[in-house]
């Protein structure tokens, strides 16, 4: 346990001292709010949950892996592999730090919404929203783990992650309503990983209730999360591909 704590402290310091990581993690979410606010300030009540999921998606698929990929590329992971530290502890510690970063990002977005655009939140709506955000974030991070495992280089992982992010962003009811989509796509979207998170967070934040189909949504997310974790663990590599 002491080992895990010291390692986690080190992981936290590394994230905080890396200017690039810090910028993307803490400026990007607020920037998103400014951009959406500038375009549609009257709809920010409705938009804020969408922006939270949007951010969670880019964080889970791309940013949350940045430091891990950097450590893999610079042979830091190989040096860690030479110690008796179990891989589960390394990954656990890394995930813990990143989940905390993700939750802080979501809090920043909510704060920006409340302060800049008078988005109404209550204790109940927040209490309901956070678990939903967390569930989505974990599933997205697991999917990001698959991308990092498959990609040969950090650059290609980012490219793949960004592509999936953009696709899901446009079709998952985050920024464009679902009825703008063609029929066939509208039938597929509910089974993709981002859509259920949008529904869950939106009803939690805006109405302080569970979405009528919350059980289905959570079940789907769990399936994605657990499945992806399993695959990501299989694909985990200590070294970059030769």
């Amino acid at each position: 346990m002491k080992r895990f704590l010291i390692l986690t402290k080190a992981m936290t310091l590394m994230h905080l001292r890396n200017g690039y990581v810090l910028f993307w993690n803490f400026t990007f979410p607020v920037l998103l709010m400014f951009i959406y606010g500038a375009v549609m300030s009257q709809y920010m009540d409705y938009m804020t949950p969408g922006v939270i999921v949007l951010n969670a998606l880019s964080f889970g698929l791309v940013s949350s892996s940045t430091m891990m990929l950097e450590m893999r590329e610079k042979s830091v992971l190989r040096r860690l592999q030479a110690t008796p530290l179990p891989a589960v502890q390394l990954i656990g510690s890394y995930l813990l730090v990143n989940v905390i970063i993700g939750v802080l990002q979501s809090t920043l977005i909510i704060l920006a919404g409340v302060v800049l655009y008078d988005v109404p939140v209550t204790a109940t709506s927040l209490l309901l929203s956070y678990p939903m955000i967390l569930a989505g974030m974990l599933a997205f991070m697991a999917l990001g783990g698959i991308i990092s495992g498959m990609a040969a280089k950090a650059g290609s992982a980012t490219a793949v992650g960004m592509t999936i992010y953009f696709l899901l962003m446009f079709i998952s009811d985050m920024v464009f309503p679902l009825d703008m989509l063609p029929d066939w796509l509208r039938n597929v979207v509910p089974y993709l990983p981002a859509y259920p998170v949008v529904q869950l967070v939106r009803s939690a934040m805006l109405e302080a209730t569970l979405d009528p189909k919350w059980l289905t949504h959570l079940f789907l997310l769990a399936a994605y999360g657990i499945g992806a974790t399993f695959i990501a663990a299989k694909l985990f590599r200590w070294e970059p591909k030769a």
Partner: protein
Amino acid sequence: MSKPIIDAQNLTAAYGSITALKGVSLSVEKGEIFGLLGPNGAGKSTLLACVEGLHKPNQGSVHIGGINVQSDSTATKRQLGIQLQRTALMDDLTVAELVEVYAALYEVYLTSGQINDLLARFDLVEKRNVLARRLSGGQQQRLALAVAIANDPQIVLLDEPTSALDPHARRAVWDIVRQLHDEGRTIVLTTHAMEEAEALCGRIAIIDRGQIVACDTPAALIANLQLNSMLKATVELPLDQVRSLPDVSNARYTGQHLEMETARPEVTLTALHELAGRSGRSIRDVMLRQPNLEDVFLKLTGHALAESN
């Protein structure tokens, strides 16, 4: 002899289609400084990686203190202090933080005083709170050494610990290695500098193209080949003419120096003077030296240590 502390048997290791080790066996005794001497690409790092549990050999086995690396790598890793060839620490951490973390990964928890003592050995105390990536190359190499022994290991594996260092810093590392040895630790280090192997190591394995071609004390390696003395001179003469001089068994150029292996240096030198006189060349910087590991390497492999595999 007692049971070896590191025992590698018949290791074959490959990266895809490249075979890096071809049936290497090696045993290191407790408390010795053991050197792996070989040119670039010989397989030194791969051999260490097999011992460290970082590379899975295709064939053969490694035991550390009687424990099989493949079946219980956590237990064998625990006994080792490691410096990899490419220093790859978390360089957004400070010097003191790094030492603390790497010791903790072995479940060794250092106090701030202990961290200071360790850093003092490597002349890094003033750099305590400096980020690792702000250190100079030599300082980073010393930090890598400090990190390697942060867990107080009985076996220390150093992959080219002095490659990036100037001569002064290199001697400082030699002193540290000797200290570690005096404390009773077993040390295995790789190098392609023969003077380093000669200066530090009790025993040396000469490794070339994935095979160990000889393994003994430096003195025995030299004595066993019964090499003659080496006569060195600065002069430009055709090698075939030099080779036919009396008593010359071999000749080569290293840079502009002519090196001749000879059983009777005084006879050869006289003949060399005559040859130079006939060719209108002058001889400078004549010197006689004992055969060294470089000569052994050349004799055993047919190529110089500086030529990569």
